[in-house]
């Protein structure tokens, strides 16, 4: 096929492929779970079909060939000729994976794995008894044209004509008064389509230029070749009512002409996936092909989630501007507030409206960046399948909350750490089948991926039902590597936390999968670089759960505006568990100036932020001060002392590091309504330092020194 396709189209084809592959994998998951319905198989079929069609337009023959065979099998399943079994579904899933690989290979201009393909095709053939391996030249050429199914659907209609190769050429020269007499050529041509495949050639030579065009006059003439066994009279009947305002001539078709109808010229399909609509026979397929795998439906399926692709920079710029708008708006209200305007003043009402608008715009703009975690999870599903195959374990993946949305940047940067973690779960977390059976568990391991919004953050959990963390072994390794002293007393969660230390890798032999010298410490620092936190919980014999908690966005945060020794600062709401007034009943002094807060039988250190930041010399009296209870990811609590709470608002995060440097205990800065800068407290960092007692956690604090640098400027 010789026509240049710009890279832009190519790119959008591959983007579309990603969406289609996602839909396809969704369908397979449903099938495997036994939750499929009639629509599922259609969706999958359409996805594969659209990929094939598009690939044909771009000359990606390898992709077309596989997609075509896969599609054939799916079509047989769709029509009930192949019995669905769970083995077949699993095989489909693998074929889907291979199709994804082929798409990526095509995108990168590399070759797919032909061994895998041959193997898959053999298995498909064995499972379905469909002849897949040989591929005739004709078939391939049809594939290239990209509208195979349509041609296939037409075929049965032409069946009667097959033995008596027969057809008519009709020349339809409409007189200029065709329209004024209330006639329309299109229904006539459609009527001809009922007889068989048609090929229409429009003669546009007498159409004048637009400025001289009389829309009331028909200037077009048509030559219509129709392949049919009907007689001349039957054909002419169609034109009965236009005989007096058109010249209709009819003559029999030769064999050569006929063949052009049956196999339309190749270049007709070269215009892309929807070429079918431009192919001569498909003037409008609604009437002629009730059972056609509708090309129109494919497009409709694709547009179910209508999207536009926008340059990311444009969105970021918009977000930046909206941030400035919110700041300006706050500045304006502050200025008006200082003018001592009456409360019922119309200006205030208008201002209130503006405020709502501004915050709504901000939310909507932020939502543009947010994307569901589903594609990420599906990638993990693939990783898990591959990992399971290479370790010989059977793994069932359960996904929950795939619709949870998260900032696109965060999402992209989650791929590597998450891949590492799910591989870890399969490789280290789950036992071998024999061990599982011996432990009285189902031989099939389970890994659950969950995403959910929780108090302004996104929490992603990776749970396995394996043996849990072998704490004795972890301890032993940590001692061997000199990470802890043999006489250190560590609680179980502290031992679990050792896994995140640099230089820790518990598995003795380096496995193909996760043992690549990259430990969980790297995963953890990657997560922390995103402003996230990681923790692990584990129960011997029942499995482990790794929890990643991430900010919804890197650009704004919900914050509590507080007063600390005359300084206005912001504490992220997400970190605050509760706020309370300090009383002598609940706060106790321990040692020299050290204070502890006891609530509900829980003791936690009290950190006066004013002292911590050097704004005042000493924590004098805690009376009338406000305590903010914050919790670290390691489930340690700490009470932060502030002087007063002001209000709660969305703050735009600004980096301090661009022009200054990192400050301990400060996460970032923001701009308040009056245009002044307020610093955003890093409660996690402060609490972690305040609760650091054991040597292991002290070591962890050292490694985690960068958690505040997490926040990016917008």
């Amino acid at each position, binding site marked *: 096929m010789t026509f240049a396709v710009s890279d832009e189209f190519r790119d959008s084809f591959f983007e579309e492929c990603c969406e289609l592959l996602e839909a396809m994998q969704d369908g397979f998951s449903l099938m495997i779970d036994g939750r499929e319905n009639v629509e599922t198989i259609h969706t999958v079929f359409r996805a594969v079909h659209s990929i094939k069609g598009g690939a044909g337009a771009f000359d990606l023959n390898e992709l077309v060939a596989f997609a075509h065979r896969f599609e054939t099998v799916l079509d047989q399943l769709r029509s009930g000729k192949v019995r669905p079994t769970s083995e077949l579904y699993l095989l489909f899933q693998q074929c889907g994976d291979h199709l994804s690989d082929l798409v990526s290979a095509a995108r990168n201009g590399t070759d797919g794995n032909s061994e895998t393909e041959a193997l898959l095709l053999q298995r498909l053939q064995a499972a379905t008894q469909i002849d897949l391996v040989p591929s005739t030249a004709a078939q391939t050429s049809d594939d290239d044209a990209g509208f195979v199914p349509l041609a296939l659907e037409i075929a049965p209609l032409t069946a009667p004509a097959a033995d008596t190769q027969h057809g008519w050429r009709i020349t339809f020269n409409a007189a200029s008064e065709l329209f004024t007499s209330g006639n329309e050529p299109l229904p006539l041509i459609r009527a001809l389509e009922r007889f068989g495949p048609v090929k229409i050639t429009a003669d546009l030579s007498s159409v004048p230029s637009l400025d001289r065009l009389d829309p009331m006059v028909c200037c077009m003439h048509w030559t219509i070749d129709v392949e049919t066994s009907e007689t001349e009279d039957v054909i002419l009947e169609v034109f009965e009512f236009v005989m007096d305002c058109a010249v209709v001539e009819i003559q029999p078709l030769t064999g050569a002409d006929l063949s052009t109808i049956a196999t339309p010229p190749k270049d007709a399909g070269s215009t892309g996936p929807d070429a079918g609509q431009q192919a001569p026979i498909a003037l409008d397929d609604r009437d002629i092909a009730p059972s056609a795998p509708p090309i129109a439906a494919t497009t409709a399926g694709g547009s179910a989630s209508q999207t536009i692709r926008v340059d990311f920079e444009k969105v970021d710029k918009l977000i930046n501007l909206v941030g400035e708008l919110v*700041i300006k708006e706050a500045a304006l209200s502050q200025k008006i507030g200082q003018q001592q305007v009456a409360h019922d003043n119309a200006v205030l009402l208008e201002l209130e409206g503006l405020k709502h608008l501004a915050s709504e715009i901000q939310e909507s703009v932020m939502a543009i960046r947010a994307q569901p975690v589903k594609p990420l999870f599906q990638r993990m599903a693939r990783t898990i399948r591959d990992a399971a195959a290479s370790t010989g374990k059977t793994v069932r993946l359960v996904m929950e909350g795939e619709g949870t949305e998260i900032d696109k940047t965060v999402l992209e940067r989650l791929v590597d750490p998450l891949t590492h973690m799910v591989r870890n779960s399969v490789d280290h977390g789950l036992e071998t089948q024999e061990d599982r059976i011996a432990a009285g568990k189902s031989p099939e391991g389970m890994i659950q991926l969950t995403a959910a919004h929780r108090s302004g953050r996104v929490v992603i959990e990776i749970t396995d039902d394996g043996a849990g963390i072998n704490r004795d072994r972890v301890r032993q390794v940590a001692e061997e590597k000199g990470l802890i002293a043999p006489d250190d007393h560590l609680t179980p969660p502290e031992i679990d936390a050792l896994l995140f230390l640099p230089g820790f890798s518990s598995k003795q032999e380096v496995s193909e999968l996760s043992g690549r010298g990259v430990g969980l410490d790297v995963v953890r620092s990657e997560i922390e670089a995103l402003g996230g936190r990681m923790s692990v919980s584990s129960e011997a014999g029942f499995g482990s759960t790794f929890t990643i908690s991430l900010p919804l966005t890197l650009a704004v945060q919900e914050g509590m505006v507080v007063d600390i020794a005359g300084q206005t600062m912001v504490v992220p709401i997400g970190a605050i568990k509760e706020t309370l007034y300090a009383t002598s009943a609940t706060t106790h002094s321990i040692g020299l100036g050290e204070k502890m807060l006891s609530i509900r039988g829980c003791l936690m250190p009290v950190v006066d932020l004013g002292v911590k*930041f050097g704004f005042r010399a000493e924590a004098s009296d805690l009376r009338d001060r406000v305590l903010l209870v914050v919790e670290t990811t390691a489930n340690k609590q700490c009470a932060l002392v502030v002087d007063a709470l002001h209000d709660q608002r969305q703050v735009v995060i600004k980096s301090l590091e661009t*022009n200054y440097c990192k400050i*301990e205990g400060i996460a970032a800065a923001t701009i308040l309504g009056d245009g002044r800068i307020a610093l955003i407290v890093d409660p996690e960092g402060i609490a972690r330092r305040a609760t650091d007692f054991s040597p292991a956690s002290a070591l962890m604090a050292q490694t985690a020194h960068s958690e505040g640098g997490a926040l990016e400027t917008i």
Partner: protein
Amino acid sequence: MKPSESPEDQSTLEMVAFRVAEQDFCFDIMSVREIRGWTETTTLPHADSFVKGVINLRGAVVPVIDLSDRLGLGRTDPCDRHVIIVAVVDGQTIGLLANMVSDILSVDDDAVHPVPEMVSGKVRGFVSGVVLLEERMLRRLDLNSVVERSNPVAA
């Protein structure tokens, strides 16, 4: 290091001249982004005394350095008449607190002299030369050294 020095073939330098603690200073005008009036800063925890805090410069967080304090000439108690010279040094935008900006000068190369030997004290480390201009003597400020040690925490 003299970041503000122009190419050798150019015989004149454009300098912005300003006063800090009754002394005249100057540096290459190309480093200056803007000059603005004093605005209240937000205090930074654990910062050096000469870091007055940060201000909002059209959405960017910019630290302000009290030049007088930085040069060891005593702390400034800023009021509305003080100015902040916003400069870019090594890609970082900083604000320099000064008493006033006096003028913008075209200085011939040969008017720039090395710092006299007998000058000692803190100032010397921040001055890359002196400019003699009629009755006046301007200290040419080396912005890099002003900024360098003002970020002690930056590793």
